[in-house]
């Protein structure tokens, strides 16, 4: 195994960061473009209340495409979500890589409760870690799996958007 191997690791980091930027910009398809056909996405959390690991949302690449295509049809809180990501570790093995990143999601209020008062303020929304798996192909790192493990069980209005 090759820990944080120079080149492949840089590619992995690059993919993670470009994914963050695409998600921040609500460019859902750009984000999916960084994902392999076999991509699987899940938002998970552990609940001490019920002493269970939970899956808050999951989907295959296909299901995420559907989810994303339906977004304009839903009534949504339009507040911007801003992810602040820091890639922690990248472990490369042959044409596979796994990475752990820490993220914090801020909500920059748009709708809020009374947008006249709240719009434009930032709030802490989520903290968690990304557990990602990649396929390395031709000098490119593509997501094959992302587990978004959040610390929060208090999610208030929640969100329609991938984190």
């Amino acid at each position, binding site marked *: 195994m090759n820990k944080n191997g120079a080149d492949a690791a840089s590619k992995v980091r690059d993919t993670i960061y470009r994914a963050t930027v695409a998600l921040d910009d609500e460019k859902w398809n750009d984000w999916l473009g960084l994902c392999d056909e076999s991509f699987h996405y899940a938002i998970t959390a552990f609940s001490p209340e019920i002493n269970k690991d939970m899956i808050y949302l999951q989907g295959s690449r296909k299901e995420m495409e559907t989810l994303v295509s339906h977004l304009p049809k839903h009534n949504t809180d339009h507040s911007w979500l801003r992810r602040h990501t820091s890639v922690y570790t990248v472990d490369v093995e042959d044409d596979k890589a796994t990475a752990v990143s820490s993220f914090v999601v801020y909500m920059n209020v748009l709708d809020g409760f009374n947008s006249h008062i709240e719009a434009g303020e930032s709030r802490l929304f989520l903290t968690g870690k990304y557990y990602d798996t990649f396929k390395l192909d031709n000098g490119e790192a593509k997501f094959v799996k992302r587990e978004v493990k959040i610390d929060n069980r208090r999610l208030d209005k*929640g969100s329609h958007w991938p984190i």
Partner: protein
Amino acid sequence: MPARNHSQWTAEPPLQQGEWVDSRIYSDQEIFEEENEKLFKHIWVPVCHESELPNAYDFRTTSIAREPIIIVRGADNEVRAFLNVCPHRGMMIERRPSGSFLEGQPSGNPKRMTCMFHAWQFDMKGNCVYVAREQEGYQDRLCKENVGLRRLRCEVKFGGFVWVNLDDSPKVSLEEWAGPAFECLRETLDAEPLEVFHYHKAIVNTNYKLWHDTNSEFYHDFMHYHNRVTGFNDAYFARKNEAFDNGHVVVGTFTVNYENYEGFESRAELSFPHLPPNQWYMIDLFPGFNFNLRGSALRCDTVTPLGPNQVLIEFRGLGLKRDTPEERMTRINHHNSIWGPFGRNLHEDLVGVVGQGATMAPKSEPRRILHGRQENQTIHDENGMRHYYEEWGRWINRSPTNPTQPYTPRAGAAGDAAVAAAE
């Protein structure tokens, strides 16, 4: 009449008494305090599910109307509830949401609830079994036998939910309170052990009754794209809102047509005991608890009002304890794709009630909130809400349409449940 001026806007709506309420019942601080005192401290609250404390010495903590509560399972497998308050100097006995007393806490013994402050200890029945340096400090003026915990009424019922009532002498027993409303699902829920697989919380700025309204009325299906586009069919409109005594409402079954939903397979394959697939029952328990069995998942919401304009909602999803991993995964996906924190509908429902909360913030101008639709008690009839507010008026002794006045029964309202049941 086009857009209205102030006097038109504040005129009484052209509806009957009981077909609308005054928004102050959602925004007034004083009314909120009365609801805690007169209502929440006297009713049966489903605080959690027994699968959350599966083993002897497991505990869960919660609260009702600001009073901290602890639920423990004894060595005898009995589930008991106590105030989570130490009789010595009022320390909260257990601060975590859940855990086990089997090993004991850092400053106490195994199989005991220990108050960390001065190490007084209690057994699972609430007896005080140890007072540190008892003789030295109290001689015979106070002995551990006198300082047991405050025991609360607690029953495990209707599919394993744990019900607590802060009132030692509740108006009616739990069976009388909710039995009739649960009738439709009783066989199903009690067939075999259930298990909670989903839990999350929301604290939102709205009144708890607005959340309950949204849970009970289906007219807002216009808000949900999938429901609106695929759900409005004959079977849907055949559903009825049935009123039960004590302010409860049950919405009857119909078959959900999943074929029309893009991207999500039908839930037909997985159901609950004694229920054909694709059934849906919703039980709206007064004043704010909701049991929603739809196809493969049972959803349960409970409210804890935090203020006139703030409520904590706890969301649970349940399946069968004996689910295979595949079955469980199916239930999870079905539940969360719609009702999870990142699901399709829940976010919309919450955005909706927060929007209401925003226009009815404390001290805002009183408004009229309508629930005057009449459709022969079918799905878009707002009779469920009318029934609810009648009961609410009775408990709080305020008229829902004019909360500065005492409650007077509205004509024919007393018979609501009876009438509905007779249909």
